[in-house]
């Protein structure tokens, strides 16, 4: 049977992707960001997941205002990097895992989560920047990816609690998939940042630190933070942190923190990263 071995969360700042693509990772501004991911790169390479369920949000790339799915699962064979206005990132095409994706769709829908099934979807920096951070710049990505896009652009986004419980449903789905697969779940976005209006540039280290602490110490309580607290405390785009709760819900209650990293700034954003491991 398939199993979830580990989970991680990371920011998905577009400027990080640009720094990688333009060969600027050694510059003094970027060096501390990339060095903060070295441990996790090695750790994940050693565990070599077969599949990553990658939770992210689309930034008006695949989904405009014509269609706004709250939870959309990518069931296609592959997903092309999106042109976000600068041309697509020079990264490999993302190979999906249609069998597992369809299985998760079926299992979670029967568990009363109304997933949107997507057979064609370009993937933007929200998905490709975390892949670059964890896998570097390979000719092809080392594992299959099941994209799970969450609406955090149009209000209301799903509640943190709904995300947390979707994570639990995903765990149940993965553990009932008959193939022998090592699966990781990644939650992306955050941490504190605001990209719009006169309050742009807001960073809240205290909120972010507490959020990282509570991911292992108090996930149930963390899942009850209302939207307004995210926006007030972590900035309007800090709302992306609800996606981390899908990852957390997919892991065991007694998952262990292996590593964390926090750095300000990457462009407008506080970069946060945490690695959690399920008990064996």
């Amino acid at each position, binding site marked *: 049977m398939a199993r979830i071995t580990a989970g991680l969360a990371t920011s998905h700042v577009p400027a990080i992707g640009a720094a990688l693509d333009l060969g600027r990772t050694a510059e003094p501004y970027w060096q501390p960001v990339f060095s903060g991911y070295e441990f996790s790169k090695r750790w994940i390479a050693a565990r070599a997941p077969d599949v990553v369920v990658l939770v992210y949000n689309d930034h*008006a790339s695949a989904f405009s205002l014509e269609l706004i799915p709250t939870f959309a699962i990518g069931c296609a064979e592959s997903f092309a990097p999106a042109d976000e206005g600068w041309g697509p990132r020079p990264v490999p095409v993302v190979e999906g895992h249609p069998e597992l994706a369809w299985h998760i769709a079926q299992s979670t829908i029967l568990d009363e989560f109304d997933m949107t099934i997507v057979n064609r979807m370009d993937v933007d920096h929200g998905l490709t920047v975390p892949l670059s951070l964890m896998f570097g710049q390979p000719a092809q990505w080392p594992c299959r990816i099941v994209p799970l896009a969450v609406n955090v652009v149009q209000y209301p986004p799903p509640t943190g609690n709904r995300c947390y419980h979707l994570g639990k449903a995903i765990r149940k789905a993965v553990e009932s998939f008959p193939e022998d697969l090592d699966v990781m779940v990644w939650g992306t976005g955050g941490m504190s940042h605001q990209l719009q209006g*006169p309050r742009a540039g807001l960073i809240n280290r205290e909120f972010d630190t507490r959020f990282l602490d509570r991911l292992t110490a108090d996930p149930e309580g963390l899942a009850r933070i209302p939207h307004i607290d995210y926006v007030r405390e972590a900035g309007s785009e800090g709302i992306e942190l609800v996606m981390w709760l899908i990852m957390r819900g997919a892991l065991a209650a007694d998952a262990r923190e292996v590593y964390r990293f926090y750095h300000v700034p990457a462009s407008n954003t506080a970069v946060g990263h945490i690695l959690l491991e399920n008990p064996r």
Partner: protein
Amino acid sequence: MTDYTEAFKDIPGTIIFDATQSRRGYHLNMFCMSLMKAANRAAFKADERAYLERFPMTDEQRQAALDRDYNRMLALGGNIYFLAKIGATDGFSFQNLASKMTGMKEDDYKAMMLAGGRSPEGNRSLAERRGAGSA
């Protein structure tokens, strides 16, 4: 539901992209979305006014787009991820747009971010600010 969206209005310098804003800004945002195609970016750059006429926006929205007045566009229903496509068409980074919206010089904004960003202290609540002012 009204209470849910109203509550966000207490947060300074922040516009939540709720149903009202989404309806108000639909065509403005769909104009931005069109800039994801290179041919449309070229057509927009060649004649901005004519290109904007293709979308059934209000004159106010068109003028804000021509002026690159991002705060005005946000107020008129623009969403930042859509508006960023105008910035990309102009060749500006997201950080450049952010500095414009805060009214800061880009270098000053960058320095603020390097120093740890904008503090949440005093930036959480308009009601709290008014309270502090009268105290």
